[in-house]
């Protein structure tokens, strides 16, 4: 069975896709750090960041609808965290109301923090979505490995990426087997069957892990994680990094005034 997620738009041929994944990872991380460190009141800086990201997305030829979809999926989590901020920060009250003896008030300082969290999360999310959508997952892992992320993490991520599909197929098979034998609408039995299925799935993945380990050992695995290394960065990658980094510095300096 074919599954495509995480990197379904990674095959497009564009400037962004052609960049060395390491260069891309460095840039995006630099952008996120730069965004996070920006003064919350520097509105022009944020506008420029947004503009920069939009240009990059445009260059990558990834449909904006795809990026937005990804983005909407994450937004609720950010909102859930940010929504309480205006209420808990002390300061000058802009609005207050009393319910059941509790004083609710929204402060100016709280609103600033709310805006700060929201805009920074939004811009950082766009950066990350662009990175993930425009890079093959396997290349991204290799790039992160080259950038000295501990190899054990890379190995865990690559196993996750390899076997998440296998487990998904396994679950689908179990579900079909269950559906073809369960007639009628007894909700409770369904839930019971579901919990059994999860148990079976757990045992299967455990056993799969054992055989995979045996297969690794037969091919010489000795407990140390080794990864093949990359070639040198191309000249064009370095130019791209320099241009974007200069742009980031410019935004930061400009935003101070």
């Amino acid at each position: 069975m074919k599954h495509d997620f995480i990197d379904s738009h990674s095959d497009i041929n564009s400037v962004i896709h052609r960049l060395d994944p390491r260069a891309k990872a460095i840039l995006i991380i630099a952008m996120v750090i730069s965004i996070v460190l920006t003064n919350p009141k520097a509105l022009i800086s944020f506008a420029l960041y947004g503009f920069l990201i939009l240009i990059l997305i445009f260059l990558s030829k990834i449909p904006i609808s795809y990026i937005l979809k990804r983005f909407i999926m994450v937004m609720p989590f950010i909102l859930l965290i940010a929504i309480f901020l205006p209420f808990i920060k002390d300061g000058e009250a802009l609005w207050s109301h009393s319910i059941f003896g509790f004083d609710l008030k929204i402060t100016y300082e709280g609103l600033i923090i709310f805006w700060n969290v929201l805009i920074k999360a939004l811009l950082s999310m766009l950066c990350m979505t662009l990175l993930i959508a425009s890079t093959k997952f396997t290349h991204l892992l290799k790039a992160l490995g080259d950038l000295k992320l501990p190899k054990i993490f890379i190995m865990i991520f690559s196993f996750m990426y390899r076997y998440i599909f296998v487990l998904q197929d396994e679950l689908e098979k179990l579900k079909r087997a269950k559906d073809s034998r369960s007639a009628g609408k007894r909700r409770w039995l369904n839930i019971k069957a579901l919990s059994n299925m999860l148990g079976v799935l757990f045992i299967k993945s455990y056993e799969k892990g054992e055989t995979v380990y045996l297969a690794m050992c037969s091919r010489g695995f000795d407990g140390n994680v080794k990864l093949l290394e990359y070639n040198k960065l191309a000249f064009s990658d370095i130019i791209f990094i320099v241009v974007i980094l200069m742009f980031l510095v410019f935004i930061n300096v400009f935003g101070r005034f």
Partner: protein
Amino acid sequence: MKKVIEIRELGYSYPDGTTALKDINLNVFENETLGIIGPNGAGKSTFLLHLNGLLQGKGYISILDIELKEKNLKKIRSKIGIVFQDPDSQLFMPTVFEDVAFGPMYMGLSKDDVKKLVTDALDRVDMTWAMDKLSHHLSYGEKRRVSIATVLSMSPEILVLDEPSSNLDPKHRRNLINLLKELKITKLIATHDLDMVFDICTRVVLIDDGKIIADGNVNDILSDKALLESHGLEVPLSVVLGEK
């Protein structure tokens, strides 16, 4: 003929005490294609796991004159390649290239050598086109071929296959048989596919209940109706029809 595998009085019991293998004595010679047959649960797969020390029982095993011991494991594992039955276990890296490169990489070769070995191995199984593909996007037959390549890339002197033809459609099964025929190295094949054994093996070992019941020429064993049927097998059709 040169002896490549020597096994004397191998015995193994599972941690719970069940005996899996008893008193196995076997010599395998260079360039032989040995079929290992037997009913389900006879101990075929358990036996294969002993060949590169994944399981270690009692008795003596030597591979290419190297005794199977903890300190020789690395050397032995580069000489004897085991292809597991389930390609999803054999192919554990995200891309085909990384998978085929895994073995050579652990042999401590340089990047260029690894690349060359990977290309050669994929070429031998006709899968060069899939080098950058993700393993889970391949068909079952393709996964099988890549599985074999993952081991070939280590240039082993002995190839061990567990149920290589299971779950394959006739065309892919035939491709696989042709591929195995072309590989001129010592091969051990554990399988229920007796027609395939008849087609490619030179010698057959029948295992049941953890013991070697019979060991001999393909034609003799595969035409012995009484022997096969008393161990949950049957005379393959190609023998009945007198093909070959």
